[in-house]
């Protein structure tokens, strides 16, 4: 276990000491990679983006503010932006027309929560497939919220949006999944 604290790592990187960079890589690289690889299925691309994230962090370490976020969250924010840029470069941005009207709260949070918490095996498997078809930002939102259990404020910082906007986006995404589930039930 390394004795360096997060503050020590930041100071070491700022002063150009090699051990600071090594420590940052050793401590956070896997976490960053795990986040990126959920959006970028190709491992080599994900590895490249992880390297870019860390190099960006080294060169912009002066802009890190420990009062706003932890070092880990700050690195995730860089990783998220680089990953979105990468996805935009490599695939056209598709805006779903189904999103229209999704912001209206015609279904209550409780109703949605009930529909997405049935415990049925086929529902879980359906959701696994549906998550793959979501846009990258929505997939990342669900991953950070449900899989990594990060608070919305932290996710808002990572994704660079207001927390209120993010809450609305989360509701919309859940509603989208719910509608798709309903549609599939009808077709069956």
């Amino acid at each position: 276990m390394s004795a360096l604290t997060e503050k020590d790592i930041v100071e070491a990187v700022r002063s150009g000491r090699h051990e600071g960079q090594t420590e940052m890589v050793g401590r956070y690289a896997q976490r960053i990679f795990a986040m990126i690889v959920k959006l970028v299925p190709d491992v080599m691309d994900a590895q490249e983006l992880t390297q870019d994230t860390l190099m960006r962090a080294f060169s912009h370490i002066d802009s890190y503010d420990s009062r706003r976020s932890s070092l880990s969250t700050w690195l995730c924010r860089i990783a998220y932006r680089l990953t979105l840029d990468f996805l935009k470069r490599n695939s056209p941005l598709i805006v779903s027309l189904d999103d229209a009207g999704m912001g209206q709260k015609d279904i209550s949070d409780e109703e949605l929560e009930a529909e997405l918490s049935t415990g049925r095996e086929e529902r879980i498997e359906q959701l696994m497939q549906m998550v793959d078809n979501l846009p990258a930002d929505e997939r990342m939102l669900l991953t950070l919220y449900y899989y990594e259990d990060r608070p919305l404020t932290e996710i808002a910082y990572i994704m660079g949006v207001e927390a209120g906007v993010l809450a609305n986006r989360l509701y919309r995404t859940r509603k989208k999944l719910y509608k798709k589930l309903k549609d599939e039930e009808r077709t069956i």
Partner: protein
Amino acid sequence: MKNERYKDTDLREALRRKYADTPQLPAGFMNNMERKTNPPMTRPVRRWWWVAAAASVLLIIGIGVTMMPIEERMPTAPKVVAKMEPQQTSVVTTQEEPREEKIVISQKNHQNKLHDSKQNQKTVPVIPTVEPEDDHHLHYASAELTKDTLPYQNPARVDEFIAKMAAYNHVKQGELECTQPAGSNVVSSVYVFPDNKEIDVFGRLLQVACCYSDETPGYLLSFSHQQFFFELKDMRQQLQYRWIAERVNGKILLYGTHAPLGTKESSACYQDYRDELMHTKSINKTPREI
């Protein structure tokens, strides 16, 4: 925004299963990062970049100066009139119609005396005199250097150019024997070009003259619509060169000489040839008392 978190257990379970086997970072990742964070090349590279950039800038400036037309490099102010050896000179004046009466003016003590027998006759100075240093009517852009301090520009190349131009336009070279002064070692040649825009003798001669730096020894250039006058000295070969072109009767008479430095030259033989060309008996030989 609700503070409590959504349970959405189906969704959580779906994501947990989906990401259960998240791949690990490849083993070589740390080594790659080490290489990126510690590049083998360090500071000296930047210095070489600066040296290369400075060299490039100098090269571009050098090319720019080389490509700049000579006219633009010439200073605008006229230089000092070149000093010439005292020599026998004369000024020839002519009329539009060569067969009509001509006026010959002998020049003594560097004074031009012009007497016209008829008021309506136009007189045009043809050959600029070389001798008078205080003749400000001539356009001099010349300087004399007594030492060969400039890159050598061989004046004989003007003769080569004229010979090629003559050959191309099927104009024969005429030899002139200048007997004045006696025992003259002046080598003269003469050409008669048609005066048309296709050949543009004056323009081409001017181009050639402009190829020479105005600091070339003996550089003396004068031109107008009617005449062209150009002189150079070859300090290596110890020769002096002179070229005179004149519009005469729809033709251009081009006369070139070269002689050892210090040789006294006379325009007498040139005038003879010119009169011969114009089918007039030279009246220069019988200077009239005015």
